[in-house]
């Protein structure tokens, strides 16, 4: 239906032999991620070994065939990302996990996935950079996630903070990628990928799994099908369904035509992609907030660092400091409007990150009129300790 943005078929988990049954488990983040992808209906994994994503890949190589899926080790990360595109258009959800250097290699494929509106999920288990960096944790790819691909065009990126959450957000990543026909990244750190925590798998009928909207669902026959039309998120016909779908990643019109180029057509095509995601940031983006009521100093955090930040916020409150806590569960699209609405006026905003300050920029842009100062608290190669965050806060306050 025109105007009904992002509708997708909603269903439950499709049973498969050896799919993780409801219950309590003790798993590593990397394992929980794979289990989440299988619950979401992913049946193709194509990847390339890179530390610290190796465990994720090895676990996938064992689990995917167990549920009837296929695993392949491709010859490099470029091939892996391309295989995801092929699988997605071939009708099957696909996943890969990598780290910074591999993520860099995938950017061309990501760019064409954005333009062609291809659902796919990439997990980036971030390690230190730049260059070969080191194998310890970081949050150094979050800008690469947003801008690493050439050209305009937004993506969706989620940042889990625990094993339970990486399970849930991997499922959510697939749902979002199907619903919005876009690449979605799960931006995690070596910290979360390697830690073990309890994982509770809910009853399958309580898990929402979304599938891409198809022209068949709308009763649109091949003859009348507009590959990039009909709705804000175009219904997606897959290869093999008799729709004679032509995949292109050039500037295109609704009917797939790529020759009637004009600056207007160019603008319309690319701006449409932008609005599809950024224009729906409020719906898509999720945040978590605590202690906001009377807070004078706000910690804005994401990913593994949010674990430390919460501990620091609780302790700060115990010391009588009016500290609030805000966690970005969705990194991109950046929830600018939501933040402005939720955050009142504060003195200082602290942004602890495992990089030299990346998210602090959109945060500053969004909240500069609602605070006096934004302070970056960087930590490279090691997760912030509560003492470190608290000492920086005390320093600034006094």
């Amino acid at each position, binding site marked *: 239906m025109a105007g009904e943005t992002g509708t997708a078929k909603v269903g439950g988990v499709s049973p498969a032999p050896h799919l993780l049954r409801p219950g*309590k*488990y*003790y798993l590593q983040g990397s394992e929980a991620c794979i289990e989440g992808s299988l619950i979401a209906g992913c049946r193709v994994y194509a990847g390339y070994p890179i530390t610290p994503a190796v465990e994720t890949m090895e676990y996938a190589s064992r689990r995917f065939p167990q549920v009837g899926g296929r695993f392949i080790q491709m010859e490099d990360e470029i091939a892996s990302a391309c295989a995801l595109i092929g699988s997605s258009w071939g009708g099957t959800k696909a996943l890969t996990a990598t780290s910074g250097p591999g993520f860099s290699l995938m950017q061309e494929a990501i760019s064409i996935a954005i333009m062609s509106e291809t659902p796919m999920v990439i997990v980036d288990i971030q390690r230190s950079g730049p260059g070969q960096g*080191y*194998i*310890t944790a970081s949050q150094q790819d979050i800008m690469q996630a947003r801008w690493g691909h050439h050209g305009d065009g937004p993506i969706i990126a989620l940042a889990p903070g625990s094993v339970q959450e990486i399970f849930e957000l991997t499922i959510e990543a697939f749902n979002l990628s199907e619903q919005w026909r876009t690449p979605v990244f799960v931006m995690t750190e070596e*910290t979360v990928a*390697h*830690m*073990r*925590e*309890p994982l509770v798998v809910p009853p399958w009928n309580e898990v929402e799994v979304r599938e891409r909207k198809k022209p068949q669902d709308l009763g649109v026959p091949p003859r009348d099908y507009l590959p990039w039309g009909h709705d804000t998120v175009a219904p997606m016909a897959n290869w093999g369904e008799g729709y004679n779908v032509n995949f292109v990643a050039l500037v295109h019109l609704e009917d797939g035509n790529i020759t009637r180029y004009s600056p207007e057509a160019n603008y319309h095509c690319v701006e449409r992609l932008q609005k599809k995601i950024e224009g729906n940031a409020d719906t898509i983006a999720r945040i978590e907030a605590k202690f906001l009521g009377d807070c004078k100093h706000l910690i804005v955090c994401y990913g*593994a660092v949010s*674990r*430390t930040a*919460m*501990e620091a916020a*609780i302790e700060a409150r115990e010391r009588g400091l009016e500290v609030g806590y805000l966690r970005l569960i969705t990194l991109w699209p950046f929830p600018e409007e939501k933040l402005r609405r939720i955050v009142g006026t504060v003195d200082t905003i602290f942004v602890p990150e495992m990089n030299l300050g990346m998210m602090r920029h959109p945060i500053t842009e969004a909240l500069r009129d609602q605070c006096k100062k934004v302070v970056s608290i960087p930590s490279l*190669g*090691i*997760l912030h*300790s*509560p*003492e470190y965050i608290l000492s920086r806060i005390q320093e600034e306050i006094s």
Partner: protein
Amino acid sequence: MNKTPRFEIRIAGFGGQGVVTIGRILGEAFTLYEGKNSVNTHSYGPESRGGACKSEVVVSDGEIHYPNVRKADLFIALSQVALDTYIADLKGGGILLIDPHSVKNVPSRSKYRVYEVPTMEIAHDIGGVKFQNSVALGALYPLIAHMIKESSLRKAISNNVPPETVEINMGAFKRGMQYGRGDGDS
């Protein structure tokens, strides 16, 4: 069982001593068989300093925010280097479990509750150094019996050793436990 607010365990030694396995077993035992919450992490590299390897388990009945050890309640040190590196992070009055064969010197010893268990020797006696973990866990059990059942530890060990070695490992656990019960502060 007592309600656990937050109990921090650190195990450290050289790579290959079972540091990671002990942490994983403890984490599993507390989480799957005691119904508690726990976070188990491990690290290599510069964060562990000196080529050492460390594993941590933070246990709680409630939510665990910061996932790492701040001030350990229990420290199992399998090498002198590991002990030297991390002893300062052990709480005053905290439990220190060492093998006197590899850890000879404990600075400010009187600050802690120190338990010396010849895990290597006992393991050799049973069948080899690879059973050292189970011996250590057996010796540890009496010290944490107020927060975990013996069966939970045994089950977790069984899940994490090759099936054909379960029996020997249970024997190793028992020997460690027997030694532990006959020992105290030194």
